């Protein structure tokens, strides 16, 4: 049993209650600390790190309800039990709504107190275990990329590599029909690899952790890179990309992921454009925001699809339109934008085109050299 050596905190303004509780616990393995009021009690929560806290609801000074909420904010795994007089049974219910696990009406017998402690500590163990499992699940999710990368991608890549060679070696040896089938195999395998890559991307990246590498970025740079990357597909479809970016428009962020976010939106604009269409990209400083907008003259988005557009795996009508995709790009884009403290919105006129607007908090001073870069992370990334 985990009952030995636990830490109990008692918060009550009545000295006699504290004394009798201590007397009951005399000889037990529990470490007991008492506090005569809410403020002192919270200090002890921080300093002592209790497993279980008993809180009196009726105290002068800081009310018990507030103490409960403060403890929950400090560490939601700490189990709280309230002491109540019979007259305050309704407030005991309220206390439980505010995070207390149980209540103990005064006066109570030593046995009642001990069994309450036992139940409280059992609950504490469950809560701590659940939190550990949650963390483990989170770690598993983050490792998912590594696992899939090796276990799924490696064999697919090896098969594809050999198909590439066979296609070359067997050209002219096999019949036209056999050659065509080999090409189809390779093409389908390529689609599968691309799909795995996009899924990995959607699941695995720790966008919150990005903040550690944030530095001053002139948005003109990632915008230009994104436009350049989208250019090949645009040329194929005879779509013109017009880009204009204010080099003074600066944000605090990560250049690589911002490029990716812009590329997703610009790439979509090209993808859903008709042949000969036009995509306009602009990045400007507007008050406290840097606003990047991407406007296309493409097919537009039906109103019914707009609200779910940024959900992972949602493809709306595109799912049946023959345009390829996994429904990941915009979901990833939104996560990137939100990790930068920004927003992404879309307005669309079905049949005539759409405008995506990414608004990011502007940095007041323009990017100047390595200023704003965390000292330990001088931008090695720009060498490559």
């Amino acid at each position: 049993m985990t009952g030995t050596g636990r830490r109990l905190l008692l918060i009550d303004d009545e000295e006699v209650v504290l004394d009798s509780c201590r007397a009951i616990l005399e000889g037990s393995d529990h470490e007991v600390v008492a506090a005569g009021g809410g403020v002192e009690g919270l200090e002890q929560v921080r300093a002592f790190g209790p497993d279980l806290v008993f809180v009196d609801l009726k105290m002068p000074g800081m009310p018990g309800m507030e103490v409960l909420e403060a403890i929950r904010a400090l560490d939601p795994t700490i189990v709280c039990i309230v002491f109540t007089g019979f007259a305050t049974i309704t407030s005991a219910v309220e206390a439980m709504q505010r995070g207390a696990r149980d209540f103990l009406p005064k006066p109570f017998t030593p046995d009642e107190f001990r069994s309450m402690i036992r139940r409280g500590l059992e609950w504490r163990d469950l809560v701590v275990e659940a939190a550990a499992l949650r963390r483990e699940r989170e770690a598993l999710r983050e490792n998912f990329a590594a696992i899939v990368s090796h276990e799924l991608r490696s064999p697919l890549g090896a098969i594809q590599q050999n198909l590439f060679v066979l296609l070359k070696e067997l050209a002219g040896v096999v019949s036209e029909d056999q050659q065509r089938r080999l090409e189809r195999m390779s093409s389908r395998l390529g689609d599968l690899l691309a799909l795995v890559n996009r899924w990995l991307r959607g699941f695995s990246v720790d966008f919150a952790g990005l903040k550690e590498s944030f530095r001053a970025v002139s948005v003109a740079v990632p915008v230009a890179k994104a436009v350049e990357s989208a250019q090949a597909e645009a040329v194929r479809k005879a779509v013109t990309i017009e880009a204009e970016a204010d080099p003074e428009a600066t944000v605090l962020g990560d250049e690589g992921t911002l490029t990716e976010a812009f590329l997703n939106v610009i790439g979509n604009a090209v993808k859903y454009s008709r042949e000969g269409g036009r995509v306009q990209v602009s990045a400007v400083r507007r008050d406290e925001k840097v606003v990047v907008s991407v406007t296309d003259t493409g097919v537009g988005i039906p109103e019914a699809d707009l609200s779910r557009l940024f959900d992972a795996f949602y493809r709306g009508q595109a799912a049946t339109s023959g345009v390829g995709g996994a429904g990941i790009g915009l979901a990833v884009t939104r996560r990137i934008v939100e990790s930068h403290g920004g927003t992404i919105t879309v307005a669309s006129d079905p049949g005539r085109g759409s405008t995506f607007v990414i608004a990011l908090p502007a940095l007041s001073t323009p990017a100047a050299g390595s200023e704003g870069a965390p000292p330990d992370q001088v931008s090695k990334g720009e060498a490559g």
Partner: protein
Amino acid sequence: MSERKKVLIVDDDPDFVEGIKAILDTEYDTEVTYNPKDGWEALKRGGHDLLCLDIMMGRGAEGVMMARKIRKDPVLREMPVLIITSLREQIAFLFPGQAVHPGFVPVDELVEKPVDPDLLLEKAATMIAAAEARRAAK
């Protein structure tokens, strides 16, 4: 006609190696090792014009360690290194600050697995030619 150039492949996936070896065999003498240790010994014996290196071998970035060793070696650092990578490294490429990053050897280029045969041959030829030009200029 000059002698065929020598290419060393270091990659722990034998099936993948067969795929790129077959391509490179058409133009080069190829040698294969399946782990960084054997790869390093082969490099030390010398005579290679190009190294094709998988950077995610074994339990992690063993290829990266090998690349770092190459960078520190006064002779080997002159040799062109073609990094062959799968998606994980691409992510690292997008996210500077992580351990894996191209640019850790003086002369390198990066291609993603699986690699198009023509692209592989083109990269190999360009890198070997550039290294020869550098040597000639010295």
